[in-house]
């Protein structure tokens, strides 16, 4: 698919947007969910919840892209698939915490035991013995090792040995989720399905943040900015701006909330160094990346996580 061109889209609710969701997104989402329901990893009712979550996230993304002209999505179908896999993973982690912990432990074992490897196929994690890397699993589900009486033989409480047993029995790579299911069953790892336990993020536009007076808002902002981690703080302050590209540092200084020295200290630089870049603020991501010795994508991730944290902390 070509890159998503938001310039040609109308406001949310526009028929072209509806078509994008039904004609492009749904054909990607539905087969993924169907695979998970067929393997009984997801109950049909849970699949509906996941589908709703994916749609909400997609609409939010499209709305922001239209409003802010955010970065283009290079491959919309791949983006939808990634969001769907992430939503499934988040859903399973919330509803089945014991299973999630078992999966984490298996991931840990794979990272530390030379016998195993993991790789990605179509957005899903595959696990195999060393040397099998890259092969697509032929089986949807892992064959269950059993003895002649049909009892599960994966009885070791050591995840590494259980993983080895399942893989050697299969004789080929297996989807990690499927391995988790086999070992969970063998070890009686079960969760009483709990209802959602959300991260409790305040929804944009609601909560304390939108009700604060200007000065109160800026004071709270400065307090929370200081509590960010060092690189997060720098990635945010060097680029955070209003909708007319006025940088937040000058807003803080003009309002008297923070003086030049305090801001320099927060940015781990001297007052002279801050003065030297003052007229260039906000800096672009490549310049920030060079200053911090990290990649441009890491700068973007740091700033995104900083904004999310501010929204969480100030929205309470």
């Amino acid at each position, binding site marked *: 698919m070509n890159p998503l061109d938001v310039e040609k889209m109308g406001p949310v609710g526009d028929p072209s947007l509806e078509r994008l969701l039904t004609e492009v997104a749904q054909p990607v989402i539905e087969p993924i969910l169907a695979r998970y329901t067929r393997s009984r990893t997801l109950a049909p009712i849970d699949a509906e919840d996941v589908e709703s979550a994916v749609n909400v996230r997609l609409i939010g993304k499209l709305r*922001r892209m239209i409003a802010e002209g955010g970065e283009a999505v290079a491959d919309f179908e791949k983006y939808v698939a990634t969001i769907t896999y992430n939503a499934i993973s988040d859903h399973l*982690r919330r509803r089945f915490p014991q299973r999630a912990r078992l999966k984490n432990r298996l991931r840990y074992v794979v990272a530390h035991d030379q016998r195993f490897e993991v790789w990605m196929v179509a957005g899903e994690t595959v696990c195999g013995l060393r040397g099998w890397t890259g092969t697509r699993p032929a089986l949807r589900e892992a064959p269950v090792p059993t003895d002649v009486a049909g009892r599960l033989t994966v009885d070791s409480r050591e995840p590494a040995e259980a993983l080895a047993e399942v893989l050697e029995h299969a004789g080929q790579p297996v989807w990690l989720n499927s391995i988790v299911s086999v070992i969970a069953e063998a070890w009686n790892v079960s969760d009483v399905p709990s209802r959602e336990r959300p991260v409790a993020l305040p929804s944009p536009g609601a909560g304390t943040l939108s009700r604060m007076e200007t000065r109160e808002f800026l004071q709270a902002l400065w307090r929370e900015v200081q*509590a960010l981690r060092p690189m997060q703080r720098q990635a945010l302050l060097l680029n955070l701006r209003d909708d007319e590209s006025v940088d937040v540092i000058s807003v803080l200084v*003009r309002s008297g909330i923070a003086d030049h020295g305090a801001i320099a200290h927060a940015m781990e630089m001297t007052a002279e160094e801050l003065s030297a870049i003052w007229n260039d603020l906000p800096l672009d991501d490549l310049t920030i990346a060079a*200053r911090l*010795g990290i990649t441009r994508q*890491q700068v973007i991730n*740091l700033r*995104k*996580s900083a904004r999310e944290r501010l929204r969480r902390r100030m929205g309470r």
Partner: protein
Amino acid sequence: MPDHRNESNAELERSAAGVRQTILSAEDEEHVDAGTLVLVADGKLDPADREVAESHIDDCAMCREELEDLRRFALERQQRGQTRLRRAARFSIPLAAAAVLALVLRLLVREPAHPTVTSRVAPPAAVIPTTSAPRPAPPAPATGYANPKWTGLMAEVRRSGRLPSSPDPGLTAPDDILRGSSSGHAAERVAPAGRIVEETRPEFSWTPRPGSTYVVAVFRDEVEVARSPLLHEPRWRPAQTLRRGNTYIWQVETTKDGTTDIIPSPPAPQSMFAILGEAEHADLVAARRAHPRDRLLHAVLFARYGMRDEARASLREAAAAGDADAARILAAE
């Protein structure tokens, strides 16, 4: 420095509203995936990626609980491994002899080794790695560093194959039997403890006690210098900065059902830490700015200033980026 005295309140209001909107429109949160959690638990994440992950984990109970579980699992696994090693040591000599004998027999018979289980499936043509390849290590400056002290330190480290040592900062307090009897929570984790930290507003964290509230108190020379409000989460970062070069003791007062207890629970030692000194911090900042990708230099300076955990993390990054000296030092650590 620009003069803002003539700017109107209306402009300020408008700018503040713009910034507020920017924050409000932050994208929906994504949880930390299992692979990244493993790297966090191992302390192997790149510093920038670590900040991103930890920022989410701070506020997400689900990811935090999963990380705690993973750390417990890693610790158990390490302990099991040590037990196995101790057991194996008793048989190491006969096993070594058997291995030599097997090698001699193979050489005499000149037969190929049996195929292993891994050969049952042919290796594929396409390989999709789960992590990106590390960036190559930057070359060391040909004519030394701008700071001659760094040049000297690096030359010595590359020659000796060892990180510099630092004086014992004396941050390990003895078990404290005077603070009362054990409350049955002796194995609780607290951080920071027994180490030097770089941040002047470090995050304090401890093993949660379900259903408890917490108050953190930080002391210097037996004088309380910081106190948290009532907390419901097992972490806190003070609003004010602590002084560089000073040593602090801290504790958590936990309350549940009207009963107050202290973490660390006696007779566990008190939690001590120090804030990296002003000059040492300036040196680190200068090194990171001048040589942002020279992880071996960072490791050397961390080690020099007594920050052994950070030194090891930077050393691992340098080795992963292909620095042969770093890999050699890491192997010897």
